[in-house]
């Protein structure tokens, strides 16, 4: 009754979420929507990087974050958490992966466990926003290019010139003394 639910203590989700859930239309209703989300979460845990529509990716992201957070917090001896993992992961070998690989990987992490990149969409086509959802620390090459300009040729030359200038100055000081 307009009061916060107090029966469970839930750790904060570390990503931006929508204030309200998205109602993906589904012939099976809200249950079908949840099954759709489950499919995406299973794929994400299995493949670690999936390409999908932005809206669906953003919605599934919250579920994946919460599942991993509860696996880290409660471990594999907590019956409700295990039931939740059993529901959310369609393939049962992924339950082992969740508790033995992902929970260990993110144990000391202070940021979110997933990353959502906006992806380009094809022209011509349906103008649905595309996205790539991935687990952090996956074995694939990074999606976003390294934007550091440190290795640019003129920056390397400038750096060398700066070093040379400093050395020259030091030498001059020594000769003066």
């Amino acid at each position, binding site marked *: *009754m*307009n*009061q*916060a*639910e*107090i029966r*469970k*203590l*839930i*750790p*904060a*989700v*570390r*990503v*931006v*979420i*929508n*204030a*309200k*859930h998205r109602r993906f239309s589904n012939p099976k209703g*809200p*249950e079908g929507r*949840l099954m759709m989300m489950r499919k995406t979460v299973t794929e994400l845990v299995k493949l670690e990087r999936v390409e999908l529509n932005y*809206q669906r990716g953003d*919605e599934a992201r*919250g*579920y994946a974050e*919460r*599942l991993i957070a*509860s696996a880290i917090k409660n471990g594999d001896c907590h019956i409700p958490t295990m039931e*939740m993992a059993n*529901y*959310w992961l369609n393939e049962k070998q992924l339950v082992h992966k969740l508790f033995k690989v992902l929970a260990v990987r993110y144990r000391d992490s202070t940021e*979110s466990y997933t990353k959502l990149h906006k992806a380009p969409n094809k022209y011509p086509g349906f*103008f649905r926003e595309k996205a790539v959802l991935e687990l952090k620390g996956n074995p694939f090459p990074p999606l976003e290019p390294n934007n550091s300009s440190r290795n640019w040729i003129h920056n390397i030359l400038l750096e060398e010139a700066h070093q040379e200038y400093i050395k020259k100055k030091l030498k001059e000081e020594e000769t003066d003394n």
Partner: protein
Amino acid sequence: MVGVGARSGAARLFGVLQGLCRETWGCQARGVATRASTRVLPFIPTQDPDVIRKVPHDFRVVYPEFLPNPVPEWRNRLREKIERKDMLARRSNMPIPEFYIGSIMAVTVADPNAAGKTNRFVGICIQRGDSGLRAWFSLRNVIDHQGLEIKYEMYSPLVQNIEVLRLEKRLDDELLYLRDALPIYSTFPSDMETEILQEGAPVPVNPIKVQLKPRPWHERWERKNLQGVRDLGLPERFYKKAKLHEKPWEKYDLMKEYRATIPEEEQADIFREISSHYPLLESTRRRGKRKRVLPSLS
């Protein structure tokens, strides 16, 4: 005729344009709609070790109204903070004891039309709700064969005294089914004495199962999964219909669960913020317990 023809041509052109525009505009509107829906930023807890003091583990159960309403559109951190300050100020003037759904309470309110300008009502707490200064609870009693329910706002200045006569919990979160139960289950004498509870003992849970009157009822109780009710004795078709209305997948909806709560870190921050007032809150709880212990000594 020419005018009509021109108009119809123009109308057709307009229609085509409108059709074209509708597509693009529809696209944009969808984009705008998704962007306009409120986004909730991740919560960043305060990292101040000096402020961190020990939070009693059961504070969120004893004082649930200190936690704000979790609906993001209605949240306002500043208003919540000021409300908490006002709530503590009110509590320092009028102690509000610990109570739960199913506790039997007596409330005294100012009433200009009553004989002594005050009115005392005894009843069982059947529902509590809302957070902050708007927190309320409902008491129910049967007086002269007439069921009475009064909703009290906890922080209203008209409330002069709140007593807990019997501190206990029930099996359900709401006792609204007492409206359809036999009156004996919600009848309490107005001169009821405060009952004794051992100090430090956990709050007892009353496992009583009430007998409901035959239909018609206020609600379809067979669909509510009630624990504190005896067998409803309905024909099989009612239970079949109730089965159809069940939503067994909702317990797996992690985000629905999350959107209905205040996250752990934020709760810690809220109780950390009011931590300087713990002595006041604790003394109120202790005083209540001492009151309950005194009759056993005498």
